[in-house]
């Protein structure tokens, strides 16, 4: 019989959608049934990171990870692992190389190469309980700052750590704080930018959901160093769980005396508000974000004046994103030297990446700066799904760039990526394989930026639309060869003249794809062919009457009703209704469906 | 000379015999739109924009070629007349490029002027538009046949000097165009670039290349000068913008005045703001300004005369 | 006061600290194209047409919101700057109707002016164009949103000059529109037609409706005059074509009001040619109004007023003065009532 132990069930948004909450109830019922309530506790944690294999459960005592767990597995897990101390082999992860089940969490390749600093509590603690945070050294950094250090010393420590903003541009955090601290004014604000709008990025959501106190603590320390007494967390409304956990955490922190007046008897006051965004990507831009809090359209304004001088309601304001704030307690607690050991010369510490797309292990990955893309994608991510060939990785959200195979040994840090024509951005890594068309991807990003452009400045408002139209034409086989030049010229002009970061970076995916995948553009334009067979306008589906055995599997699975025929006779695809989804090709056992 | 009395828009007016209705109107400040009419040229009556209604006359006769008669009752602005003119303009604009923003002629374009007056957008009859190549092969005249409204004034003025007669109508119907022999560019024709045609063109089909991009018509102040190259006495305009001379353009030539390239370029030279009043001489590879006396070797002439007088 | 010396296009100029690069250029007759800038309004930096190249700065900063610095080296016309501006113009034109022939704004349209200068035709990026209804529901302002270039000046004029805030941006990105709430036509919004928006519009999106078809900018002579409607003394330009007043436009140099005017001043001038307007005094004789000379009429009024005052006392007389008079005339009117007639019964139509 085991002593007091915990079962950690991932209840992040990803796993919750595949039934984590049912698992928790089932576990609780089973534990009760077995009379183990006294010794075993069930913890619904934030994201454990391994979304691909969700829902996941960790038996803390044995450091075992069970993947793709269903309610039906619960009884067996309790019976064998908790009671008999035997692993449930069929629920263990199968190692890709050895093809053997992996018993220990630390031996799983997905986790082995990671270095979890910001994510160290995620998936381990119950985010809705402040004790679990304080038990793991939470709020010690705040106590150290308030009791042992002057604001200037805190600032100096952050500067020495070499931490740079994790929101994308990589501006040195200490320097930024210093500007705001130095600005004239008695009222100052700190803001946490949790408007994680980059499609394909969800690390901020996971941190807020799984470890909200680390963000609050970071903001408290920052406010102390800067001299601010009020703060906002600007969170996307699409992240209801993050907002909920944050609000609970703020309530608990207030009760514990970490927020409010005269915090820990130091005379330092700080109030924290949560502000739910309303759905506009551009609000990730600092000045647009502040306009949004002020109740306006999220249209960026010109800088200077910089937010550090004139920010929210005209007061000096410091904005950092979730991951940046979350790094702060660790730096203060362990010292800047410890932090500065990690990473590269100019990019210190770790960075979380969201690994998605056509990769085997999707999920959250925290690695030291300077790790190569290849290590992340192949060693941690387990390579490309279904044995397809790797084509490109898109890094840095819709404003970043797509890097081809030959750039995989680029180290991920601010400077190397910028040199390669991409950016760290929020840290989304979307893996694309041979079936992804790069022209279509560029078109996709432009359709995103076109929709999210605020409309204030001419080049972005009109230019993103025109770039999208040209790309759309090309994917339909209606492009002209001079379109490539037109796109490049337009892209450069928009980059150079746009008001805010959105417009200045919106052309990046185009420039990067033209740079690395020009041949795909040319194939669409000159040969009217999509080499990846992805652009549906350039494809047509038909059934080879010779090969078709008339099994009807294609018609049964067709999401529209465009395949018709009689059993045992060749089936026919009606082109007008076909949405070219490719389901029939996947289903046909006789290779009878032809894609041309 | 016999004097005729007629009624125009309810107003009784008197004109000498032999006057056209158009002339009668203009004499009395009654405005009639025209595109193909020029008082120096024989009226072709081709653009039909000057149509009026005359009591007892079938259809709507063009004012430019209809002789005034005793007791004639003319209406120039009634609904029927205005509607007819509007339709003509709609047809012209429907086959005209709408690049007014960058068109050199804007501000002096008759088509735009009447389109504005009659509220014509060219949208009603949208359809096939001409797409002929632009003749940009010579340094003097930019010829955009797509903007041509086929009024024929350029042909008439070119033919007014017998040895020129470079251009004429070619093809027919919707495909009609104004062209030199064999429909070549002007540079391959025997055009001498006197710019008579440019000066008379009511739209942007013929443009003086030396003026492109230098300013809009309304920004210019014009000063008329008479050419001194020969005894013909052709006229040119000196165009200034913000007090600075921008260029010399030909004025539409009166009958009997040939107008020539030499005259225009010569005048341009003569009125060029960069023209210096003082001579230069090349000293060690550099041009240095010197006084006229020195240039002409008359440096000490006064002294010489004085010494002679002594 | 601190002076900065900077180099613009190779020329050294000195300006006060706090000056923008745009102001520095304009002070020194260096032309910079602008669409969203107006000295009377707060800067937006939105149209991006005024971009310049500044040594040491990333990208091409807009001169209207970039402050000068000591030793700054600015280039306003190099090929890179000009090509960026041309691209912006091409983008604007690609989404702008080309009905210049009939556009009331032609001759005074900034977009056309720069398109001409930069040779931008709008052909390069042809694609989807807006197709929004034209707001033709009121007698004063014709609003064609399809011509709008989203410079935002009308919004600021409405908020900052007039204090009404009827207009704002709505939707976003390519679909951005400018107009009253719910995109209502002007006459269904709380707009009171001061026309400040019209006076700042750089294109044909907002035009004075009554001037349509009456003359183009280059045919019009502008005569500066003082508004007769009330005592504020606003100045504006009467637009005269062919000897006829066709309308009123703001004169930015008006000392009292700048570009601001009220609905009466801007759109109330049609009384000039009103057929109902009296040109001689009328005297009612045997129940019929008969034209009379001024002497005759004034004599009659003086006699009658004298009689009434004698018979019924000065307080039996009241005067209502008119906003069409000048301040001085209204002053005289009240002086006449108080000093000559001897009553305080005096009022003015602009007060009611």
């Amino acid at each position, binding site marked *: 019989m085991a002593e007091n132990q915990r079962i950690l069930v991932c209840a992040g948004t990803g796993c919750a*959608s595949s039934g984590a909450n049912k698992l928790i109830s089932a576990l609780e019922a089973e534990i009760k049934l077995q009379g183990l309530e006294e010794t075993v506790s069930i913890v619904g944690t934030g994201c454990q990171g391994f979304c691909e294999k969700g829902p996941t459960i960790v038996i803390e005592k044995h450091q075992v990870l069970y993947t793709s767990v269903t309610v039906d597995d619960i009884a067996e897990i309790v019976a064998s692992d908790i009671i008999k101390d035997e692993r449930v082999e069929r629920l263990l992860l199968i190692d890709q190389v050895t093809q053997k089940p992996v018993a220990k969490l630390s031996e799983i390749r997905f986790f082995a190469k990671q270095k979890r600093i910001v994510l160290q509590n995620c998936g381990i603690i119950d985010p809705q309980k402040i004790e679990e945070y304080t038990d793991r050294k939470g709020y010690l950094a705040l106590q150290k700052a308030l009791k042992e250090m002057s604001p200037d010393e805190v600032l100096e420590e952050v500067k020495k750590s070499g931490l740079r903003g994790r929101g994308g541009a990589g501006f040195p955090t200490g320097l930024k704080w210093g500007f705001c601290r130095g600005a004239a004014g008695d009222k100052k604000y700190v803001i946490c930018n949790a408007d994680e709008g980059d499609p394909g990025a969800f690390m901020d959501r996971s941190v807020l959901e799984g470890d909200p106190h680390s963000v609050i603590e970071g903001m408290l320390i920052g406010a102390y160093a800067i001299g601010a007494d009020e703060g906002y967390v600007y969170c996307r409304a699409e992240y209801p769980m993050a907002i909920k956990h944050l609000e609970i955490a703020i309530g608990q922190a207030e009760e514990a005396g970490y927020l409010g007046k005269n915090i820990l008897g130091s005379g330092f006051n700080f109030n924290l508000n949560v502000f739910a965004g309303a759905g506009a990507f551009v609000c990730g831009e600092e000045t647009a974000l502040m306009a949004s*809090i002020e*109740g306006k359209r999220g249209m960026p304004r010109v800088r200077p004046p910089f937010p550090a001088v004139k920010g929210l309601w005209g007061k000096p304001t410091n904005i950092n994103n979730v991951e940046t704030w979350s790094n702060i307690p660790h730096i203060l607690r362990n010292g800047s030297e410890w932090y500065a050991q990690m990473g590269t010369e100019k990019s210190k510490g770790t960075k979380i990446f969201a690994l998605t797309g056509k990769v085997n292990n999707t999920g959250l990955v925290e690695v030291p700066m300077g790790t190569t893309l290849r290590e992340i994608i192949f060693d941690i991510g387990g390579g490309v799904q279904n044995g397809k060939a790797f084509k490109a990785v898109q890094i840095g959200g819709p404003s970043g760039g797509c890097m081809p195979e030959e750039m995989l040994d680029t180290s991920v840090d601010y400077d190397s990526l910028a040199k390669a024509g991409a950016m760290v951005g929020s840290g*989304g890594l*979307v893996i694309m394989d041979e079936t992804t068309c790069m022209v279509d991807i560029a078109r996709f990003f432009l359709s995103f930026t076109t929709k999210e452009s605020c409309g204030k400045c001419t080049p972005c408002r009109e230019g993103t639309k025109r770039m999208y139209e040209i790309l759309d034409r090309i994917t339909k086989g209606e492009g002209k060869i001079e379109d490539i030049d037109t796109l490049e010229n337009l892209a450069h002009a928009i980059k150079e003249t746009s008001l805010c970061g959105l417009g200045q970076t919106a052309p990046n995916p185009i420039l990067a794809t033209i740079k690395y995948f020009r041949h795909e553009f040319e194939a669409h334009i000159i040969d009217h062919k999509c080499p990846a067979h992805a652009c549906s306008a350039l494809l047509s589906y038909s059934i080879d009457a010779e090969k078709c055995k008339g099994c009807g599997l294609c018609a049964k699975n067709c999401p529209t009703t465009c395949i018709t025929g009689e059993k045992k006779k060749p089936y026919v695809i009606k082109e007008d209704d076909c949405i070219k989804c490719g389901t029939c090709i996947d289903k046909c056992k006789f290779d009878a469906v032809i894609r041309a | 000379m016999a004097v005729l009395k007629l009624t125009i828009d309810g107003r009784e007016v008197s004109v000498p015999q032999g006057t056209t209705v158009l002339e009668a109107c203009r004499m009395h400040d009654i405005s009639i739109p025209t595109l193909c009419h020029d008082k120096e040229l024989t009226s072709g009556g081709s653009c039909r924009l000057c149509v009026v209604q005359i009591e007892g006359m079938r259809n709507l006769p063009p004012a430019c070629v209809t002789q005034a008669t005793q007791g004639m009752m003319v209406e120039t602005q009634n609904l029927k007349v205005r509607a007819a003119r509007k339709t003509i303009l709609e047809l012209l604009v429907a086959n005209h490029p709408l690049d007014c923003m960058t068109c050199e002629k804007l501000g002096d374009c008759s088509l735009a002027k009447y389109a504005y007056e009659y509220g014509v957008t060219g949208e009603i009859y949208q359809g096939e538009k001409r797409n002929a190549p632009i003749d940009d092969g010579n340094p003097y005249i930019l010829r955009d046949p797509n903007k041509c409204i086929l009024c024929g004034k350029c042909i008439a003025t070119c033919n007014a000097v017998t040895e020129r007669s470079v251009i004429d109508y070619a093809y027919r119907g919707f495909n009609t165009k104004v062209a030199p022999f064999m429909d070549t560019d002007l540079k391959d024709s025997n055009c001498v670039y006197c710019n008579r045609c440019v000066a008379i063109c009511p739209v942007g089909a013929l443009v003086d290349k030396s003026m492109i991009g230098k300013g809009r018509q309304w920004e210019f102040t014009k000063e008329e000068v008479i050419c001194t190259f020969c005894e013909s006495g052709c006229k040119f305009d000196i165009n200034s913008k913000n007090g600075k001379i921008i260029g010399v353009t030909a004025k539409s030539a009166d009958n009997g005045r040939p107008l020539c390239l030499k005259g225009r370029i010569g005048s341009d030279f003569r009125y060029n703001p960069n023209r210096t009043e003082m001579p230069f001489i090349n000293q060690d590879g550099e041009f240095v300004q010197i006084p006229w006396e020195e240039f002409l070797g008359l440096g000490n002439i006064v002294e010489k005369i004085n010494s002679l007088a002594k | 006061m601190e002076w900065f010396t900077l180099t613009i296009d190779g020329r050294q100029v000195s300006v006060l600290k706090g000056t923008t690069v745009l102001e520095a250029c304009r002070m020194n007759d260096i032309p910079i194209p602008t669409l969203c800038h107006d000295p009377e309004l707060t800067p937006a930096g939105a149209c991006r047409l005024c971009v310049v190249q500044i040594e040491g700065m990333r990208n091409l900063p807009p001169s209207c919101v970039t402050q000068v610095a000591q030793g700054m080296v600015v280039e306003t016309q190099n090929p890179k700057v000009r090509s960026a501006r041309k691209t912006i113009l091409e983008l604007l034109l690609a989404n702008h109707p080309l009905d210049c022939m009939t556009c009331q704004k032609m001759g005074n349209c900034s977009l056309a002016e720069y398109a001409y200068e930069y040779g931008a035709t709008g052909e390069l990026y042809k694609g989807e164009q807006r197709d929004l209804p034209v707001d033709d529901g009121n007698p004063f302002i014709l609003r064609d949103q399809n011509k709008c270039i989203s410079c935002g000046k009308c919004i600021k004029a409405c908020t900052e000059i007039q204090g009404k805030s009827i207009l704002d941006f709505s939707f976003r990105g390519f679909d951005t529109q400018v107009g009253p709430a719910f995109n209502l036509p002007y006459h269904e919004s709380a707009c009171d037609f001061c026309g400040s928006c019209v006076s700042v519009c750089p294109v044909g999106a907002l035009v004075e409706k009554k001037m349509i078809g009456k003359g183009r900018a280059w045919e019009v002579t502008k005569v500066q005059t003082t508004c007769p409607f009330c005592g504020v003394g606003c100045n504006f330009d009467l637009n005269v074509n062919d000897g006829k007043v066709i309308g009123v436009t703001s004169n930015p140099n008006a000392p009292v009001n700048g570009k601001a005017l009220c609905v009466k001043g801007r759109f109330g001038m049609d009384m000039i040619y009103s057929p109902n307007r009296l040109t001689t005094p009328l005297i009612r004789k045997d129940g019929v109004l008969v034209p009379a000379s001024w002497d005759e009429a004034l004599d009659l009024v003086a006699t009658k007023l004298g009689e009434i005052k004698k018979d019924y006392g000065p307080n039996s007389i009241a005067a209502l003065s008119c906003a069409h008079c000048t301040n001085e005339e209204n002053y005289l009117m009240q002086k006449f009532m108080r000093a000559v007639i001897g009553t305080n019964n005096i009022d003015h139509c602009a007060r009611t």
Partner: protein
Amino acid sequence: MNAKTFKKENIKGVIFLCTECQDLVDPKEITLDQIITKYKHENGPLIPVLQQAQEVYGYLPTHVLQHISKAMRIPLARIYGVVTFYAQFRLTPSGRNVINVCLGTACHVRGGAKVLETIEKELKIKDGATTEDRRFTLEVVACIGACGLAPVISINNEVHGRLLPEHITGILAEYE
């Protein structure tokens, strides 16, 4: 609206009644006034007020916006500008079930567009529209942060992941 004075206003056919005679007032309106009162003295409260008003009404009807404008002294045009700027706000009522199709990068790469096309064909509506029977409203969103399960859709905030076009009919059938 001032509760002390009996006031009857008619703005574009919508009648606001005094809050003193409770029986004449829509209960939603009382909630709305409470929301406004709660935020009235805070800085920049417009967006939370609109968000909560939308929770109350399901969308943002014109008269509600007019009321907020008056009560908070914010120009109506500015409110309209804000409402049309943010994707979250709706000016028309939605269907009983709101489908959010994620077209974030990860979902796009893993075939989100096909999923969307299938739904569009199935329901015969396009992005932003509502079916005639008001059963479904279809909205395309950029990333709901469940990229690990791409492609995903969410119906009434329930996330469905790892989708294939052929799953759609079955999933939609679960919603009445």
